[in-house]
């Protein structure tokens, strides 16, 4: 599977759409050559990103647009990867304010961003040009991964 592929999904900000996106992402990851751990990690990160758009970008409103683009890419050292962009028209926030938290204490909240930053190789939040937020992230095959224990780059929130 060497030629590149690109798929765009446009959903509304309804949590009911998430399983459909997960299925599409998982299948694409498999076709691109991702193994179990990498495919699961990618699916999880995208799901968390969408949940955050629904909850924080749109305050729970279920009928707002979210655009997801999945594209196969290659790392500079030749590894296969998938680049994901998630675009919303919701609340604009300072990208630097989107941080996970230290996990020294057991409490809910702040886990989504922690997960995204833990499993993805590149994560970049930006304000969208026509409003809303734009999240761009990349995962490469056999990198990072869900069970590694590398130090996170998060500041506590």
């Amino acid at each position, binding site marked *: 599977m060497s030629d590149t592929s690109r798929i765009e999904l446009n959903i509304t900000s309804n*949590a009911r759409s998430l399983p459909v996106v997960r299925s599409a992402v998982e299948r694409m990851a498999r076709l691109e050559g991702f193994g179990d751990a990498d495919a699961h990690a990618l699916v999880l990160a995208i799901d968390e990103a969408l949940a955050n758009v629904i909850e924080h970008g749109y305050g729970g409103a279920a009928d707002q647009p979210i655009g997801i683009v999945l594209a196969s890419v290659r790392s500079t050292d030749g590894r296969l990867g998938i680049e994901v962009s998630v675009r919303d028209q919701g609340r604009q926030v300072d990208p630097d304010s989107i941080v996970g938290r230290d996990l020294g204490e057991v409490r*809910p909240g702040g886990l989504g961003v*922690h*997960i995204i930053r833990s499993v993805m190789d590149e994560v970049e939040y930006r304000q969208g040009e026509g409003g809303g937020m734009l999240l761009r992230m990349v995962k490469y095959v056999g990198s990072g991964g869900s069970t590694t224990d590398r130090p996170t780059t998060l500041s506590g929130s």
Partner: protein
Amino acid sequence: MADNQRTNNLVKEVRRTPEGTVVALTGDVDLHHSPALHAALVEVAGERPRRMILNLADVPYIDSSGVGTFVEVFRRVSAYKGKMVFCGLSSRVKSVFEITKLDKFFIICDTEEQALKA
């Protein structure tokens, strides 16, 4: 009604034993289902079982809203000195516990039998 339906879809079985109450879940525990899951688990926690055992053998997927729900319920169960024990985790679900470092806080067993003695 809609909520009830969601709960019923998610909670496959609640079994009360002297060692604790086993709650068997089914389906993806995601943003869509976590609110109903929270309500169902708070209800069980209200009965103050010695152990609250969550059997995830039939849960293919979980996200941070799911583990966040578990954390919140864990605080309630800990408050009355109960134990919260997990079993039946697939490697996929286990990895989410690991990424969020909750595998360090929760008791995780392979089987329900082990969980009832944990």
